[in-house]
């Protein structure tokens, strides 16, 4: 990708080169929103910003809300599939020596569970929430690089389909989501299973990186006037930091998986100790991505918590600056502790101790966040609604996960619990407690904004109770069974080890947890069809996304709001200050300065286009083919180049040239 790839195709009217020097022609004018009444403003803006009708139109959409909705639904489907994997595994493990699932299938199941949950559910869903909310929260009309964003979605959905179709074909990776060499290497993974892992990872991370760049630029350059750095909502900060972590972490896993497929396909020796390679190099590279990955999933969830708590504690978050600084320091520190995943590989003792210190250090900024949230809640009994219940569940569970994380950071202690069910318990406490519970809270919180309808509060409470009990019943005993010596990733265990009863209990808890998601699905569908109308701001929250209608129109805001406070809607109770002067006949949005968010440029945003989809198909076909031959890259470059030229070539459509 380079500079020209990122530009929108908009351009000025043709101009003869006789005027080879001097000023460009003045911008052709069109109708402005200044002084226009609401009804005609709505008509003009809808005409400019809507997604075109028809199937081609739908496939061409570049509206961040449309793309985000697709992302959310797709990620939710992958969550269900990954959950079904887990259910199958728990049935197999519910007693010693069960014969329901053999090792060959079981290994594919737990690999698909990990890959699906990490790469196809957790990262995409937090990014998708960001795609939906960030442009609304910063008060702009679309995300930056909307076509890149659409491209990212097509890449993601095809990458996910690729992984799951390979599962149906009995060629799903069976080497764990971490795919350590030599097990995933050329000698010990015959066939194409490990190649599916390698290419699917590289491929889907392209989408993650695209979204990250789009998010960063949206936050840097498209904030509403007045939203200086100190007035950026915490959720947006969280997404910004996350996107930076993505930009610096995801290349590591792409490099790792590329090295792996090179070793497998063209016979390089990067991980072959007999020819100068090293298997541990894989682990270093993988965890350089793998640890920040946890924070990629967790940090946006902290942003959600920071959005939900103020709405129900009826005050701005306590210690806003402290929370921002801890987000940034967590982002930095997350790159300094990958080695704690490798304590059992026999690294030099002193080096390992350094990583103990750095791993424990990250507890401090995380502690700051927890304390600030608690302090926010301490003004009196908050309004208890379902989103807040899930935040309480988050505290209960995540703090346990964080504390067991401190245990894992200790080198000697880790040597006992590493690669046991204790670790399985730990990271489910961190990821489900730290990310899924806030996400569920966020679903109840923002559902009215997305659909215009409320979800059922009664079902929501049942859902919370079931999820909370089911989760703890399923995962708390895993701490114990891990300490009793049960390693991870075993498809069975013998009766004499005495793990039978506790595993039965765990499986029962897992079923309960799964049921809670069935209830949640019902509540989602029921809410979308029959929920009570929500109004613009059902929670009386303070950030900008609540200033527009529910669901928001394609152009987000009739006029660009002006921000005077970190909770702008609380500061401006009567009327919302807005800026005028943008054209309404074309997709014009406001570019502002990075630090102070002064209005700077009126720039045009990209129009709908089918090319991102075509480019994604070209890239996807290349990746698929590259599992079989390295020449795929050469042949695939041609359609990729053609689709990219089609994408970026200016169309000069009349709407733009009037």
């Amino acid at each position, binding site marked *: 990708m380079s500079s020209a790839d990122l530009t929108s195709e908009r351009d000025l009217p043709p101009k003869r080169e006789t005027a080879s020097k001097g000023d460009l022609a003045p911008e052709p004018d069109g109708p402005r929103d200044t002084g226009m009444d609401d009804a005609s403003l709505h008509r003009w803006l809808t005409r400019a910003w809507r997604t075109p009708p028809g199937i081609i139109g739908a496939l061409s959409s570049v509206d961040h809300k449309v793309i985000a909705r697709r992302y959310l639904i797709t990620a939710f489907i992958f969550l269900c599939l990954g959950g079904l994997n887990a259910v199958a595994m728990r049935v197999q493990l519910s007693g010693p020596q069960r014969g329901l699932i053999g090792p060959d299938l079981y290994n594919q199941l737990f690999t698909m569970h990990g890959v699906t949950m990490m790469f196809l559910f957790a990262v995409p869903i937090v990014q998708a929430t960001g795609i939906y909310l960030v442009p609304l929260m910063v008060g702009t009309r679309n995300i930056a690089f909307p076509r890149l964003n659409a491209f990212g979605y097509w890449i993601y959905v095809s990458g996910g389909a690729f992984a799951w179709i390979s599962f149906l074909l009995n060629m799903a990776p069976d080497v764990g989501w971490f795919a350590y060499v030599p097990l995933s290497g050329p000698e010990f993974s015959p066939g194409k299973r490990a190649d599916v892992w390698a290419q699917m990872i590289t491929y889907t991370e392209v989408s993650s990186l695209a979204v990250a760049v789009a998010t960063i630029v949206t936050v840097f350059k498209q904030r509403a006037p007045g939203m200086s750095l100190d007035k950026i909502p915490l959720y947006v900060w969280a997404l910004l930091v996350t996107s930076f972590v993505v930009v610096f972490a995801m290349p590591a896993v792409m490099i790792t998986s590329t090295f792996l497929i090179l070793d497998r396909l063209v016979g390089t020796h990067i991980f072959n100790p007999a020819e100068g390679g090293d298997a541990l190099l894989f682990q270093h590279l993988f965890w350089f991505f793998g640890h920040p990955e946890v924070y990629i999933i967790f940090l946006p969830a902290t942003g959600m918590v920071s959005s939900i708590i103020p709405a129900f504690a009826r005050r701005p978050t306590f210690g806003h600056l402290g929370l921002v600084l801890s987000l940034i320091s967590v982002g930095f520190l997350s790159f300094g502790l990958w080695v704690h995943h490798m304590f059992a590989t026999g690294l030099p003792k002193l080096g390992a*101790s350094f990583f103990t210190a750095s791993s424990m250090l990250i507890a401090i900024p995380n502690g700051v966040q927890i304390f600030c949230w608690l302090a926010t809640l301490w003004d009196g*009994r908050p309004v208890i609604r379902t989103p807040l219940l899930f935040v309480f569940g988050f505290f209960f569970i995540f*703090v346990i996960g964080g504390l067991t994380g401190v245990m894992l950071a200790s080198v000697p202690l880790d040597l006992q619990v590493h690669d046991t069910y204790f670790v399985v318990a730990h990271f489910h406490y961190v990821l489900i407690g730290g990310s899924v519970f806030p996400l569920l809270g966020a679903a109840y919180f923002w559902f009215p904004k997305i659909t215009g309808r409320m979800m059922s509060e009664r079902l929501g409470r049942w859902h919370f109770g079931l999820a909370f009990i089911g989760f703890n019943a399923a995962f708390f005993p895993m701490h114990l069974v891990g300490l009793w010596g049960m390693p991870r*990733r075993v498809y069975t265990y013998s009766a004499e080890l005495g793990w039978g009863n506790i595993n039965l209990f765990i499986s029962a808890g897992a079923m309960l947890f799964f049921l809670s998601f069935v209830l949640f699905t019902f509540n989602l569908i029921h809410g979308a069809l029959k929920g009570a109308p929500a109004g613009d701001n059902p929670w009386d929250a303070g950030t900008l996304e609540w200033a527009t209608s529910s669901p928001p129109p394609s152009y987000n805001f009739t006029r660009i709001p002006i921000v005077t406070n970190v909770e702008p809607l609380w500061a401006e109770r009567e009327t919302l200050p807005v800026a005028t002067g943008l054209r309404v006949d074309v997709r014009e949005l406001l570019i502002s300065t990075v630090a102070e968010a002064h209005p700077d440029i009126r720039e045009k945003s990209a129009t709908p286009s089918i090319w991102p989809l075509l480019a994604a198909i070209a890239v996807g076909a290349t990746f698929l083919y590259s599992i079989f031959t390295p020449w795929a890259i050469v042949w695939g470059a041609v359609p990729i180049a053609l689709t990219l030229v089609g994408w970026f070539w200016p169309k000069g459509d009349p709407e733009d040239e009037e």
Partner: protein
Amino acid sequence: MKRLAWTGFGTACVFLQGCSGWQSALDPKGPAASELAWLIWFFTALCAVIWVLVMIALATPLLMRPLARSEPLALDSGADRRKLRVVVIAVGLTAAIVVGLTLLSFFANRTLAAIGSDAALTIRVTGHQWWWEVRYEDATPSRILTTANEIHIPAGEPVRLLLTSTDVIHSFWVPSLSGKLDLIPGHINVLDIKADKPGVYRGQCAEFCGAQHANMGTFIIAEPRAKFDAWWNDQLQPAGPPASDEAKAGEDLFLSRPCVMCHRIGGTPAGGTVAPDLTHIASRRTLAAGTLTMSRGNLAAWIADPQGVKPGSHMPVVELNGDELNAIVAYLEGLK
């Protein structure tokens, strides 16, 4: 509260049955595991206290009067200043605890490192998919002993294990004696272990290593020094002659059928090295790396259908009729 109690009850129930395990980090039988168990309990207790404090802090607002505020931005700045003080103190405490725990684990690490500094016995453990090759090193070449899956050690003495692998990464873990350490091709890792008392301690591979990762068990059998030396001497002996006609027939079958391609039996022409050494197989406690207990029936089951017992393992199905199977089992049973 009720659900807490319920969870507590459930975990208490299952807790009781887990203590008897011979593969438990909470049931230490050696200095390293004892140090680690102490560390685990200490960390757990400290973390539990912290967690309870956070939960109290979380529950407090629930017990307060409902919020009186009409406007969210109308804050009580005095209250926020007091809160700031509490938060700063809490962060300070967090930092102090973090430093304390770092130092604690650093010193624990030093204690662990000191355990094997004077180890007299060196054992080379090589991981294979999905069994352990065990080689007792000795200055005298004739005393070098190769066996599989079960590691006899003298009780009360530190023993040095040299860990490596010929295929994929495995991890050696006997929880009641020490923490785990990986076996990585191209690397040799050193793990010192010591069992305080004679006993049998189970362990198993802790790094995912393919199809039969779940059935890659090992045993450490700690014995008094004299008994250990006697065991070593016994193991060095070649296999004795078959005791019965049936066993003799079994030996002939063993040597003329696929068995001989992979396995070694000392004192016979069978010299395969890619599978476990069977010279004294009947003296071991288990078959197929801890998958089955040693018995005539299990031996027969394992030989007749290894892919049913341990699907994906490298032991192929060899077609034998009933008599042939009985003969081979009789022969192997005699290899004490």
